[in-house]
């Protein structure tokens, strides 16, 4: 068994530092109060940890499987048969390219963490690994062997190279990358983190204010009038906003430059990145759900973000390389053609959206108005306590303005919401400002539930929810609310009938493939 490439400790160091960023920030914020030792201790731990990981990691590329032995105190031995490897994803940033190495991530059919991560190995090893995995899944491409696309996906030949044969489905021009940056506002997350970080140490706020006062630009903050405070707040907010846009655009270009989506037999292959080129595979058979999102910025720009949820594969950035985009940004008109290319069997052209009963708007309006009044009340109370608010009339205006605005919003929401059910696919759309369409192929439907709150019962409504595999619990499932009860039951029974019909065809296919 051999060790990783000799330059691995450097990359392991970076990865470890990245993983420790929150504890480090915490220690840094606290170190102003406590001693510096906590910070130094953590910082010292990182290179030691990186070296430790390098020394105690061994792997071997055997004929049938990959062997990995890690750790000294907590030993972990893994045997990964090549046939079980679904995807090989690689990352190559400029440092990788300079040194002729790459970070390899093997994904298996079960979800969560990647099956194995090799950080880093030389390119010859990567190629050998690819060959071994491909050999284990059967020789040659699916087309040559005449297998069906389902079986090809199951065998998953993983010759993952940008330049290998594959039909280009999508190429993102630079302007779309910038549009994605604008629409996603990733900078907001960083801003939230930084605010959280700075708020740990209120001295810094005061220091900042005193520093401004010392400059002579503004009087000391305790002497400001209320109007000046508001103006200052707005000014700072605007400046931060502009800074955030710049940062977001830069991030988008680094991450998504030259995003290419290729359609290879049974899977999608994407590559992206400016300095750090990543390649990711999505086996089509494992795609459970398509989600099309349009926030207000998308709507203004005339585009959408299309993502997929898959069963298996890593779930979040902490665990490994993640790609859930089918198209980070694409113009609205190209969404259906894109979906048709990727998933031809799902009746995309016959998306006849059925509307919800219009009387639902009143329910939505009442709920939102209650939430609005509660939040406005709380905000008003806090502002009053902080003496930023003199009289009661701004609050009264806030209360009253909610009524027409929320009424318009509720009516628009109910008008634009809808559902579409066909023999092969079920879809739901909702939202006014944050529009969303969710499409699930019929054979990916798992458990279905019909919910009725007491309010639903009073109005004769119910909501239907469809559960799928590998979905993100934070995002909404396929859900249709405010349906008439009879309609909810009808849709559910229709889907159950479709699933029943599929059992017999699946059985036949399964039996046939066993004979091949």
């Amino acid at each position, binding site marked *: 068994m051999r060790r990783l490439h000799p330059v691995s400790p450097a990359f392991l160091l970076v990865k470890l530092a990245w993983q420790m960023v929150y504890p480090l920030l915490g220690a840094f914020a606290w170190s102003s109060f406590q001693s510096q030792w906590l910070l130094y201790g953590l910082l010292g731990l990182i290179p030691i940890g990186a070296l430790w990981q390098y020394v105690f990691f061994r792997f071997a590329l055997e004929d049938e499987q990959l062997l990995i032995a890690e750790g000294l105190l907590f030993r972990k031995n893994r045997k990964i048969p090549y046939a079980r490897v679904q995807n090989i994803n690689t990352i190559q940033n400029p440092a990788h390219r300079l040194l002729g190495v790459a970070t390899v991530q093997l994904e298996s059919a079960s979800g969560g963490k990647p099956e194995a991560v090799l950080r880093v190995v030389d390119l010859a090893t990567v190629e050998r690994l690819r060959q071994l995995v491909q050999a284990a899944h059967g020789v040659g491409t699916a087309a040559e062997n005449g297998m069906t696309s389902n079986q090809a996906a199951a065998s998953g030949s993983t010759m993952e190279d940008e330049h290998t044969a594959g039909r280009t489905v999508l190429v993102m021009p630079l302007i779309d990358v910038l549009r994605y940056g604008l629409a996603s506002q990733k900078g907001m997350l960083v801003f939230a983190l930084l605010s959280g970080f700075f708020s740990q140490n209120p001295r810094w706020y005061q220091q900042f204010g005193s520093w401004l006062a010392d400059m002579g630009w503004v009087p000391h903050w305790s002497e400001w009038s209320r109007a000046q405070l508001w103006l200052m707040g707005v000014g700072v907010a605007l400046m931060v906003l502009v800074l955030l846009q710049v940062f977001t655009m830069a991030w988008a270009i680094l991450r998504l430059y030259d995003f290419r989506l290729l359609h290879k037999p049974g899977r999608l292959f994407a590559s992206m990145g400016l300095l750090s080129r990543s390649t990711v595979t999505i086996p089509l058979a*494992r795609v*459970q759900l398509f989600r099309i999102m349009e926030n207000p910025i998308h709507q203004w720009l005339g585009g959408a973000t299309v993502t997929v949820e898959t*069963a298996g594969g890593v779930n979040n950035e902490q665990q490994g390389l993640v790609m859930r985009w089918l198209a980070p940004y694409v113009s609205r008109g190209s969404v259906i053609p894109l979906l048709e290319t990727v998933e031809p069997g799902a009746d995309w052209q016959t998306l006849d959206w059925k509307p919800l009963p219009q009387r639902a708007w009143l329910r939505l309006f009442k709920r939102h108005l209650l939430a609005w009044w509660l939040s406005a009340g709380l905000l008003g109370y806090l502002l009053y306590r902080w003496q930023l608010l003199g009289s009661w009339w701004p609050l009264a205006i806030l209360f009253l303005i909610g009524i027409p605005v929320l009424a318009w919003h509720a009516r628009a929401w109910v008008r634009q919401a809808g559902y579409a059910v066909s023999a092969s696919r079920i879809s739901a759309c909702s939202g006014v400002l944050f529009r969303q369409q969710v499409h699930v192929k019929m*054979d*990916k*439907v*798992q*458990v*279905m*539930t*019909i*919910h*009725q*709150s*007491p309010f639903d*019962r009073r109005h004769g409504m119910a909501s239907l*929810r469809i*559960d*799928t*595999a*590998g*979905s*993100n*619990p934070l995002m909404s*499932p396929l859900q249709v609310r405010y349906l008439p009860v009879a309609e909810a039951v009808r849709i*559910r*029974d229709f889907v*159950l*009938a479709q*699933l*029943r019909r*599929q*059992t017999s065809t*699946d*059985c036949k296919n*399964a039996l046939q493939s066993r004979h091949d």
Partner: protein
Amino acid sequence: MPTACWLGQQASHLRLRRWIGGAVLGILASLQPLLFLWLPDVYPLSRLFAVLALMLLVALAGFWYTGAAFRRYGFCLDDTALRIRQGVCWRKETAVPLNRVQHTDIIQGPLQRHYGLARLVIHTAGTRHALVNLEGITRQQALALRQALAFDADNGAV
């Protein structure tokens, strides 16, 4: 195993729930007079009566609620799915398609064993409904359901 639809839970399940709830409340209620005796300044007589009255209300509400939930609970196995209906105020009907069952567990605590009750846990490939629970059925029913689900679950397709 074909069943006439919408079977309910066992009456012993209801009794067990009520007894357990009652026991917990009883223990808490018996602690109150002790608190009154030991901490008279924090715990005056008025507070004792208020707390005991509150506990009585909770007991009555619990008694009514467990009865209502028991009456509402039902399950039905037909040739397309296993359906479970539950909930008093917030009602829910779960439908598990037969060919989406990954595997099943039968769980019995010591009290359940004494009464011959069991809980059937159905594992699916879903996310929010990766586990579907069917409570308060007899062990024989659970075994029969497991048999029926396994027979149809040759795909468990994902």
